[in-house]
């Protein structure tokens, strides 16, 4: 059977079977020592990449003004961790709902994992209409090639208008790969998304947050963006909502992977939220004076359900692990509250936390640049103020 858009060059094909191993949709068979493509091929291109003999040619249908309108619905890539939805996935669902309502379209969610079905009801509550579920034991840990092939295939098959990814380590690895495969635009790290003249208006900071840019991708579909965690508002869940579930059968051969995970090392304590996901971050800098002194921040974090971060100076001094670092060479965070303790707030630090909702700074130096961007500043010794603040908050929070 001949499939539109893909061809096996029989002279070149040796029937080695690498394409069979790598095809996530099980759409390649070897017949009479030649590869043969079946009707369920999505043109995802996984086979193209592994073929050593250039025996596969894929030509996807070209986009024109006419068929742009075939692309409908707003999709999100749902990131999960340890079988739970990451908070950023709820943010994406809420945003996608808002955009889809403006366009009069549906929200689709793609969930990949060893198990995914149990997450459908929860994500539906945040506005998802259709859940595309891909379950396979080889998807328990993220890997670029399998995820890229599956996403690309699903997008080609279902033709969404917009696809949103989280701007997390995973999303920033996966989204550009999928975008390049589909030959579409991708806007990184958006802090704003809306619809203008029927197009996705993507807003992002650039030049270290000194400037904002509005970006569109008018001539290709889907329009794709990664979205910075903690920026989009999570809407109130409606638990009566249910999503239509579409299960996608997948076959994966782990032997086809060229990159293998040997070991996963966690340097943050179990149960502690990562900085990217925290609503409240309490960061310490050079002014903390020692690793031991971070205990006062840990104590405060416990009281207000926050996470402890650090400036580069504190990480370089060996007081905190690298995963704690906020700033240009560390993480970019945007919590509801950011409390900077003993951090002078050079531009390199500001780049990583400037988009926080509320910034509070505690510093002995009234000239510290952190006060230029803080909403509230306390001039004083953090060693006295933090414990006193912790006591106050304990009292006040008990009352509520």
């Amino acid at each position, binding site marked *: 059977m001949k499939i539109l858009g893909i061809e096996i060059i029989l002279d070149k094909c040796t029937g080695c079977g690498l394409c069979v191993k790598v095809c996530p949709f099980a759409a390649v068979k070897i017949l009479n020592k030649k590869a043969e493509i079946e009707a369920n091929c999505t043109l995802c291109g996984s086979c193209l990449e592994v073929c050593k003999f250039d025996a596969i040619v894929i030509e996807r249908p070209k986009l024109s003004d006419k068929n742009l309108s075939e692309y409908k619905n707003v999709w999100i890539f749902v990131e999960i961790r340890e079988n739970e939805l990451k908070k950023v996935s709820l943010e994406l669902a809420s945003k996608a709902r808002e955009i889809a309502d403006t366009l009069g379209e549906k929200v689709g969610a793609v969930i990949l994992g060893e198990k995914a079905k149990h997450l459908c009801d929860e994500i539906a509550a945040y506005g998802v209409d259709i859940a595309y579920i891909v379950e396979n034991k080889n998807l328990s840990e993220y890997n*670029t090639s399998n995820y890229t092939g599956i996403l690309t295939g699903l997008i080609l098959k279902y033709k969404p208008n917009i696809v949103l990814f989280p701007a997390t380590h995973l999303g920033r690895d996966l989204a550009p790969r999928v975008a390049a495969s589909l030959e579409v635009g991708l806007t990184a790290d958006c802090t704003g998304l809306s619809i203008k003249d029927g197009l996705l208006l993507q807003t992002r900071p650039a030049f270290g947050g000194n400037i904002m840019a509005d970006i569109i991708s008018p001539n290709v579909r889907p329009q794709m963006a990664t979205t910075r965690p903690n920026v989009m508002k999570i809407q109130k869940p409606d638990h009566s909502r249910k999503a239509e579930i579409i299960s996608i059968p997948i076959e994966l051969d782990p032997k086809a992977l060229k990159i293998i995970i040997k070991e996963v090392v966690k340097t943050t304590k179990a149960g502690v939220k990562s900085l990217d996901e925290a609503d409240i971050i309490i960061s310490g800098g050079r002014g903390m004076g020692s690793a031991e002194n971070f205990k006062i921040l840990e104590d405060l974090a416990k009281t207000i359900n926050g996470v402890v971060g650090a400036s580069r100076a504190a990480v370089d001094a060996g007081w905190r692990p690298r995963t704690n670092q906020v700033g240009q060479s560390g993480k970019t965070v945007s919590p509801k509250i950011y409390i900077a303790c003993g951090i002078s707030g050079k531009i390199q630090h500001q780049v990583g936390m400037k988009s926080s909702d509320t910034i509070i700074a505690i510093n002995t130096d009234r000239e510290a640049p952190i006060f230029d961007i803080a909403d509230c*500043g306390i001039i004083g010794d953090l060693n006295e103020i933090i414990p006193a603040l912790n006591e106050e908050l304990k009292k006040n929070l008990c009352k509520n």
Partner: protein
Amino acid sequence: MKLIACIKQVPDTTEVKVDPKTHTLIRDGVPSILNPYDQFAIEECVRIRDQIGDCSVSVLTMGPPQARSALMRCLALGADEAILISDKAFAGSDTWATAYTLSLAIKKIGFFDIVFCGQQAIDGDTAQVGPELAQQLGIPQVTYVEKIEIDNKNKLTINKQTEDGYQILEAKLPLLLTLLPPTSFQPEHPPMSSILKAKRKPFNIWDVETLGGDKSRFGLDGSFTQVIKTYTPPKRGECELIEDNPKEAAKKLSKILCKNEALTKR
């Protein structure tokens, strides 16, 4: 073996100011530097080359003629050969068009084992060109690379940063890596002898004609994304300063915090 490093010359964003009237970047007087992430990538690339032996490093960039100085720095840091991909036709490239142009240059070089990129550039911070380039070259990638060891000539052991720690990966060649410098990273300043030596190393300039490829895919025309507006971010309100004895200050701050929905909505 052949290693290729892709680098970018960037304005030092820590020095960038915005014109309050026109809301555009004031680039005058802002120094152009080698993207710090790329400097780390080059240093690692050279280290791996020296370890392997019988191996050379080509460094490439797409940029205006002035980007030559960033390439010269890479040569001084130990790269063997530099290629400046420069043509007016490449102006206005988005990440996809940039990756497309770089992929043509790499295909023109013809063979390679590892492509090194910085995790991201400090001007755009997109982190997209590396993965988009890997996809166009049809090779695997590892992003957020903190550490690389080469075991034998066909296998790498890589530490990849994750949000809560790191993974240790084993990877076959060829592949593309995007590197993340350690926090303690101090860019090396090459000595005068290396700078002088760099001037005698091969330096090529490739334009549209040299690269070939589909001309409609270069630069602004080849870009899928369009920037329609740039502006300065809205200013934050004034800072409310509290100067009091620690107890009183803590009381005041506690009151402010308790009003915040991050604390009330728990």
